[in-house]
């Protein structure tokens, strides 16, 4: 039972991550290969506030969200100066620098990471695993509602316009700079939420939890599911959480299978499983 | 020398060339005239092999080349001077010329180079310069020269007068005319600059929005009401 609950919690956290990256990459079209950095900022903020100041999870969580949104706004600034491949490499760089900062600066716990992060509690009652899973699920649904709302409101329209054609968007009255930074802020804030959940669930984090390969995994989730859609981000997150578990008997070949899947997807199904342009989704919607 | 039969070309769903047919005879200057967006550039790109043809045939020296790749067509003797003096901007002038001579051997390269420098002495002065730093007129000269270095039998030129001062346009057209008279080089010239193009052409065709409007000798076209219409209404 605990095993399944843990998987459920991972699924929730990964879904929030995928949904948040989807705002930056899927809606706004800004290639980011460093999403784990924002996740890490959230986790570290939450962990440090909780351990150093002794505040509860319920204070640490919003603080982490605000902090990550702020950092997201700053780290999103390069997207105003560079684009496409330059941005991709810059975001990889951001991931490395953030990770190295956590690992080598004493304040962040250095190579030992941060331990003794309190598990969330209400009053004197420590949450049970099931309760944590429920809470994560609620946050996940909330994140889904937020990203869906962003997608259908004016801001989503503006973001998608920026993604399709910056000049035409600008000529339609969209302030391209503002919208790009907003995408990074909202996306980072949600990643901060995921990071806080992760920190308080694991109760112990190190810099290596937020390394570059994780950024790729998150990106793979939305690409495999179908970029730019809430359902795609969800499906991708769930699949990429469960698949490694299913491959557990293949333990030794797990990463290889995963990497090969990634290549095959890019080679043969780059529009994702249920993206707007995928064959499967077109069939499903035609019947409906 | 070149025969184009019922050519149809699309960009995505846009039908750019509609049943275009014509023939260029050996040693002549054939001009294709039309306003912007008429499909002139697309036509040359299709003949060069840079744009896929949906329907129709391109025959060069009796050989069907419709499905050949651009570099294969270049070795057969077709050459193109791109629009707007498009050349390799990061290479030097001489390297651009060397590139044009990619398929020919070293001795003939030197000979060809002397020939080009005689045509456009200004290029020799600038031979070590990066091509991107040339003026508009020099770029156009280089573009034509690069195309000439391949030792073509058919030289296609895409708007050599584009954006150039009248003095330079005259200079370039004089060179083209001389080339044709002295060496018998066949030219396929695409132009917006009607009078200039017709002045040196033996025959010409007018296209508009992908269709053929009319064709004939320069005199026939210059007195054709439809042509004036197409341009100035």
């Amino acid at each position: 039972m605990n095993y399944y609950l843990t998987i459920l919690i991972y699924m929730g956290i990964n879904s929030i991550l995928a949904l948040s990256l989807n705002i930056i990459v899927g809606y706004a079209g800004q290639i980011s290969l460093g999403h784990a950095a924002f996740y890490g900022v959230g986790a570290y903020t939450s962990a440090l506030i909780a351990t150093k100041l002794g505040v509860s999870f319920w204070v640490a969580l919003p603080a982490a969200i605000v902090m990550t949104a702020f950092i997201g706004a700053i780290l999103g600034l390069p997207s105003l100066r560079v684009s496409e491949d330059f941005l991709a490499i810059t975001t990889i760089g951001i991931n490395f620098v953030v990770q190295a900062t956590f690992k080598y600066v004493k304040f962040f716990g250095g190579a030992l990471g941060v331990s003794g992060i309190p598990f969330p509690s209400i009053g004197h009652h420590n949450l049970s695993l099931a309760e944590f899973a429920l809470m994560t699920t609620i946050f996940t649904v909330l994140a889904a509602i937020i990203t869906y709302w962003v997608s259908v409101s004016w801001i989503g329209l503006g973001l998608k316009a920026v993604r399709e054609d910056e000049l035409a968007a600008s000529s339609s009255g969209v302030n391209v700079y503002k919208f790009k930074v907003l995408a990074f802020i909202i996306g980072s804030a949600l990643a901060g939420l995921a990071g806080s959940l992760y920190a308080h669930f694991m109760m112990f984090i190190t810099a290596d939890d937020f390394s570059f390969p994780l950024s790729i995994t998150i990106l793979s989730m939305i690409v495999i599911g179908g970029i730019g859609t809430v359902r795609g981000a969800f499906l991708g997150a769930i699949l990429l959480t469960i698949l490694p578990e299913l491959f557990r008997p293949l333990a030794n070949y797990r990463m290889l299978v995963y990497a090969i899947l990634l290549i095959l997807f890019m080679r043969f199904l780059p529009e994702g499983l249920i993206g707007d342009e995928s064959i499967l989704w077109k069939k499903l919607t035609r019947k409906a | 020398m070149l025969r184009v039969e019922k050519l149809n070309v699309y960009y995505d769903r846009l039908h750019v060339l509609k049943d275009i047919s014509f023939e260029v005879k050996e040693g002549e200057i054939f001009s294709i005239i039309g306003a912007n967006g008429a499909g002139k550039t697309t036509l040359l790109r299709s003949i060069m092999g840079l744009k896929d043809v949906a329907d129709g045939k391109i025959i060069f020296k009796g050989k069907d080349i419709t499905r050949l790749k651009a570099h294969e067509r270049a070795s057969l003797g077709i050459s193109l001077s791109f629009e707007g003096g498009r050349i390799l901007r990061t290479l030097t002038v001489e390297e651009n010329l060397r590139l044009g001579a990619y398929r020919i051997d070293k001795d003939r390269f030197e000979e060809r180079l002397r020939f080009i420098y005689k045509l456009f002495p200004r290029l020799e002065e600038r031979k070590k310069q990066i091509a991107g730093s040339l003026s508009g007129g020099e770029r156009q000269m280089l573009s034509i020269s690069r195309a000439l270095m391949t030792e073509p039998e058919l030289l296609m030129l895409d708007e050599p007068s584009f954006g150039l001062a009248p003095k330079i346009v005259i200079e370039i057209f004089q060179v083209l005319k001389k080339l044709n008279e002295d060496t018998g080089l066949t030219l396929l010239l695409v132009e917006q600059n009607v009078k200039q193009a017709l002045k040196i052409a033996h025959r010409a065709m007018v296209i508009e929005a992908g269709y053929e409007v009319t064709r004939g000798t320069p005199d026939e076209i210059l007195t054709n009401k439809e042509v004036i219409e197409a341009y100035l209404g």
Partner: protein
Amino acid sequence: MFLQQVINGFASGGIYTLVALGLTLVYGVLKILHIAHAGIYALGAYLALIAYRIYPNIYFAFAFAMVGTAIGGYLVQKYLYWPILDKPRIVPLIASIGLFLALEELYRLIWGPYVIPFPQKFHWKSYNLGHIRLPGSDLFVFALSLFFLFILYWIVNRTKVGLAMRAVSDDKEVAEASGIDSKWIIALSFIIGSALAGAAGLMVGVYYNSIYPTMGDVPAYKSLAIIVVGGMGSIEGTVIAGFGLGLLEALLIGYLPFAFPRDALAFIAMIIFLLIKPEGLFSR
């Protein structure tokens, strides 16, 4: 002390440059960020290992590794990149990262996760220049990198195919209309770039006397930083940025008052650089 750091910086700069040059060549002709290039680099080290076990001669090992990686590079462009060139930019990028991961996993499965020493220990002679000691291993790496750089320089600037490579990377259509088979030139860029990476892999294997599956990680990300600073596709820019980074690292690490990883330095330098000059050193 200072000069020794400089020599060390030149040695690692040489390796960075060799690896990054492959990326630059590929980016020039295909505009793809070929991250799996670092997987090819590690392949070079492993192939050298095999070669050395078959026939213990360092020249043979070089030849074997370089031919093998060249073939590897050729296959990658033909079967992975070529079919997805017209897809959105993110597709070949993720495919490349996927291939990189897959290669590292393959090496781990075949040769094990541990560090394998190079079969022969080379005894480097150190040279003394006045009272400065020049470690032979550094000189070996530096000299060899210069050798390969010279060969590349010669190919690119003095031969016909080199001219064709530069032409394709500048304007593919003009190159084709000049009679160049751009498909072959692109393949050739992969072949040359991969062979250079193979040589670099071997050199690192010998230099540190260790070969392991994830040895490509650090060069992978560093060469990205290098090509950005160099101006994406510019060979001169890459050479300057590569050696510059090697020197910067060696000097900073030697004198920095606190511990900071070499690898993050590259990116910090890159980000600062980008903010000042977003188009890189030698952009076009």
